[in-house]
């Protein structure tokens, strides 16, 4: 029941928000909604709610063989928690901002949250597809209405890209439906479908390309920097903290258990793609002058690493990916919030036009410094745990690939420190002459993130234990194939 609640709360409050004309009311309402969702998932994680409440199953489209099934695993809980936290943070950080058409903005945001919740929870192919699209469509409207000059163009690209992916996935789902013994869309039946190796391989690629676009993985990534740059930063936070995790999550939950043979036989190619993605995006980030583009490329690099780690098929790799999905989410949210503060308060996001902010805005500088350190996976920030495990997994898979991938930690240091130095150090420039410090709401949001980052960096056990069952489950499926 609580699983359904996690979808229903944002869905219903989102619908209600559409009818709110007044910005103040809409934002209070959404903050309240996000708090409620957060409370739900925290209750679930702390075991205050009995586990039997966690899943949900009801007839939905019987003539298609689809049931409305929601299921919880450790990984799902973690991502739902991430989703809830990020929404709370976003609403908190932008609390004082006046949006045009606030009712629609908050309504669409909450609908998107409901969609992403559904994606994480769904255990039925058609339900999964339904929510996948439900998350995409509000994103489309959000990006095309609140953003910068070229937002329509960027959104169009984003939409076409992801929609092609969605269609590939839909085709895959329908074929899978035909292959299942009981003609259903349930995840469990998919896992027991009779597939020849060729069929499995074909379907694997159908699904994988769909998810690779979402991640995004090189060479399907070009929608991302453009979309992140052009859409409003509050929306970018959600896109890059939570929505890109949908791609990784889908690989973990849908591809690996259903197509284990194909996953194992294609792992080499995909790991190499992931590492290319990692290094390529890192190198490009070094030369970026646009703050938002820089963060976008850095994000592509991290996602590439996670994708490679997934297909390493090792215990540390898998564990690392899971925790890193969460950690990357909170760290990149922190980076985006600073980008948002800088863009709205100083009116530029060109790194070359900024400088000397550490004198004018010491709090902002300190907080961004911590986020930047998280971004380069410094030990005792949470990202270190994830990256350490992931690199360790890739290294177990292949020493050479591991060594090549590790070069990225040098590159990440280069571009992140470049950014920090150019924005905060040196002397002030015209744009930052009369800069004020970070506003109070954004500060609170950043402090929450900082505490999370440092706590999980020092004591990552809660997170590791949360995802333990998922790691075991996925790997036992893969190991079965390997033997």
């Amino acid at each position, binding site marked *: 029941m609580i699983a359904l609640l996690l979808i229903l709360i944002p869905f219903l409050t989102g619908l209600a928000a559409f009818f709110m004309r007044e910005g103040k009311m809409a934002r209070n309402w959404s903050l309240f909604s996000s708090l409620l969702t957060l409370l739900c998932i925290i209750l679930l994680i702390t075991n205050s709610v009995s586990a039997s409440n966690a899943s949900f199953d009801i007839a939905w489209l019987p003539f298609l063989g689809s049931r409305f099934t929601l299921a919880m695993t450790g990984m799902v809980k973690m991502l739902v928690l991430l989703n809830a936290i990020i929404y709370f943070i976003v609403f908190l950080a932008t609390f004082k901002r006046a949006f045009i058409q606030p009712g629609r903005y908050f309504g669409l945001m909450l609908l998107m949250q409901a969609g992403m919740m559904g994606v994480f929870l769904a255990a039925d192919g058609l339900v999964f597809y339904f929510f996948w699209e439900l998350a995409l469509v509000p994103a489309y409207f959000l990006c095309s209405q609140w953003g910068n000059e070229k937002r329509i163009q960027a959104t169009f*690209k984003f939409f*076409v*890209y992801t929609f092609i992916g969605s269609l590939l996935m839909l085709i895959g789902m329908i074929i899978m439906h035909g292959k299942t013994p009981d003609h259903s869309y349930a995840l469990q039946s998919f896992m027991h479908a009779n597939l020849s190796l060729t069929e499995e391989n074909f379907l694997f690629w159908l699904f994988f390309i769909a998810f690779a676009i979402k991640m995004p993985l090189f*060479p399907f*990534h*070009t*929608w991302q920097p453009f979309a992140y740059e052009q859409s409003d930063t509050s929306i970018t936070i959600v896109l890059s903290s939570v929505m890109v995790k949908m791609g990784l999550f889908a690989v973990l939950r849908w591809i690996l258990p259903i197509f284990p043979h194909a996953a194992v036989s294609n792992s080499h190619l995909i790991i190499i793609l992931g590492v290319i993605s990692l290094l*390529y995006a890192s*190198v*490009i980030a*070094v*030369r*970026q002058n646009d703050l938002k583009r820089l963060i976008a490329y850095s994000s592509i690099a991290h996602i590439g690493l996670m994708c490679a780690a997934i297909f390493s098929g*090792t*215990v*540390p790799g898998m*564990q690392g990916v899971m925790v890193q999905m969460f950690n990357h989410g909170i760290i990149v949210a922190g980076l985006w919030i600073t980008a948002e503060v800088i863009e709205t308060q100083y009116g530029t996001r060109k790194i070359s036009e900024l400088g*000397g902010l*550490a*004198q004018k805005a*010491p709090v902002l500088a300190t907080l961004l410094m911590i986020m930047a*350190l998280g971004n380069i996976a*410094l*030990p*005792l920030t949470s990202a*270190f*745990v994830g990256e*350490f*495990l992931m*690199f*360790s997994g890739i*290294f*177990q898979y292949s*020493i050479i690939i*591991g*060594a090549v991938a*590790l*070069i990225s*930690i*040098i590159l990440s*240091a*280069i571009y992140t*420190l*470049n950014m920090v*130095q150019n924005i*905060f*150090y*040196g*002397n002030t420039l015209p744009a930052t002459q009369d800069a004020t410090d970070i506003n109070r709401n954004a500060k609170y949001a950043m402090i929450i993130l900082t505490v999370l980052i440092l706590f999980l960096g020092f*004591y*990552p*056990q809660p997170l*590791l234990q949360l995802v333990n069952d998922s*790691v*075991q489950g996925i790997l036992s499926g893969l190991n079965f194939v390997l033997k």
Partner: protein
Amino acid sequence: MNALVLCIPLLPFLGFLIVGLCRNKLSKTMSGILASGVIGISFILTLVIFFSHSYSPNAITYFNFISNSQYNIPFAFQVDQLSTLFMLIITGVGFLIHVYSTAYMSEETPEHYARYFSYLNLFVFSMLLLVLGANYVIMFIGWEGVGICSYLLIGFWFKNNQYNYAARKAFIMNRIGDVGFLLAIFWLLARLGSADYSIVFSNASTLSVTDVTGITILLFVGAIGKSAQIPLYTWLPDAMAGPTPVSALIHAATMVTAGIYMIARSNVLFSMSPVTMDIVAVIGLATAILAASIALFQNDIKKVLAYSTVSQLGFMFVALGVGAYTTGVFHVMTHSFFKALLFLGAGSVIHAMGGEQDITKMGGLRKKIPITYWTFLIAVLAISGFPFTSGFVSKDEILMAAYAHSQPLFWLTTFAAVLTALYMFRVFMLVFLGGFRGSEEQQHHLHESPPAMTIPLIILAVLAAIGGFVQLPEIFGGHDYFNEFLAPVVPAFKHVGESMAVQEYYLLGGTVVGLLIIFLLCKKWYAVKHFEGKYTGIKNVLAHKWYIDELYDAIIVNPFNNIAGFLKSIVEKSGIDGIVNGVGRFIQYSSRQVRLVQSGMVGNYILIMVLSITVLFMVFWNQDLIIGFLQKIF
């Protein structure tokens, strides 16, 4: 006991939090007392451990940091002789430098003053983590932690972009080393399923030769980055952009010696791989000579000391490379005394000169700042290896170990030692002897530093003078207390035989005579009223540091930037994005072309209709033929 050990790193961390978070509210005195106080207490706690001999080869585990079904990395500390020694150096020297800083940084605003001390505390915390960790992962946490603190402190005066570049360079070069270190950890985890020292060392014999060689070389790559050896040494001289006490603490006494600590800690692994040992010795030697040669013609007092540090670290690696681990560690200790003293002395000089660092503009400071003069003299004698100072004892042991290993190594190391004496006396003469070469204003400004600065100088001077007695060779009536102390963790180098006694006397005599000659030569060259500091020919090349920085720019930095630019503007924009946009444009273009078929001429439509009907009929009538044909093709 466990809580006590935990307190040692935790106190500086608390200090960092309190001073850092309340930097707007604390007065300068308060933040100075707080920051120095926590380090002082840590030092006292370390002394408690030292005197109670509560060492244990077993790790103290606090909680599981990372655990999975393949390996378990506990958050554990190991208190043994080696880590205790380093803790004593870190907290002891660290405390003195904190005290010194309270006066040295007094011109900063309270906020920046507190920021400085919070960074310094964070550094001590990270460094303690590094030496206390009971496995390589905890060591790595400290390893990167000290790196970031060094970054923050080098760029402490962040308004100056030159300093920021230096800070970034330091961090990135360290990261290159860190890649090696991390790979070594992964390798260990993959082969042995653990990174705990106890497990790794007891199972080391199960590793193949390739594994051991690979792991040790990668570990050494880490050490190269952190301890500024060829080819990653260029960050250390640039790191002198930071405040001088920082250079003393981080870039002389503690952080840069982390590489030596790591190798000494992993002596079991390194001893198994002669190849790596040779590489360590050769790189150490090359660095010792190269850095010393550069130091000969530098005019910035801190730059000379920085190259001197690089050179001395090279000596330590020579010792490690020939298998004399305890000797390397011993030189770490004595070096931390005299090099910290040199830096703090230099700081005192700079303080007196009102921020001037160019030694060509100094001279004749002997009378003006006597305490600094005397302590600096002791440090110079120690680093040059004047008999019975700490530097003599440790360097003498390194030379002996090198001699036992191979003759050429010995002579080259001796050559580096001679260079050391040369450049140190040069600095000493230029700064303290001769006549004053600075401006009137500076001369007027000259004054001895406040007690908060001179007392640490005096303490360190005493240590630099007598610190070597714990390891005095037996023929001088000493005893290997130091080696015995470390013996449970690091085996001593077995070289002290009967025949060595004679060489010991040769060395003693040689040193005295050599130093005297060098002293007189330097006095003739440098203790002068006018000194230009302009060089030509080979001296110019040395003054320009062999143009290594320019070389790196030309072969690494610039090509990398060009590649990045190429990827960004050509491959990404025109290539991949071009293809993606090209697909869209092709569809638009082709639909524009196809649209023309709809000419609006009814006649054309009908013609096409009739033709297509005819074709359909043809196909229909000949379908067997067509299918047969297709089957033949596919």
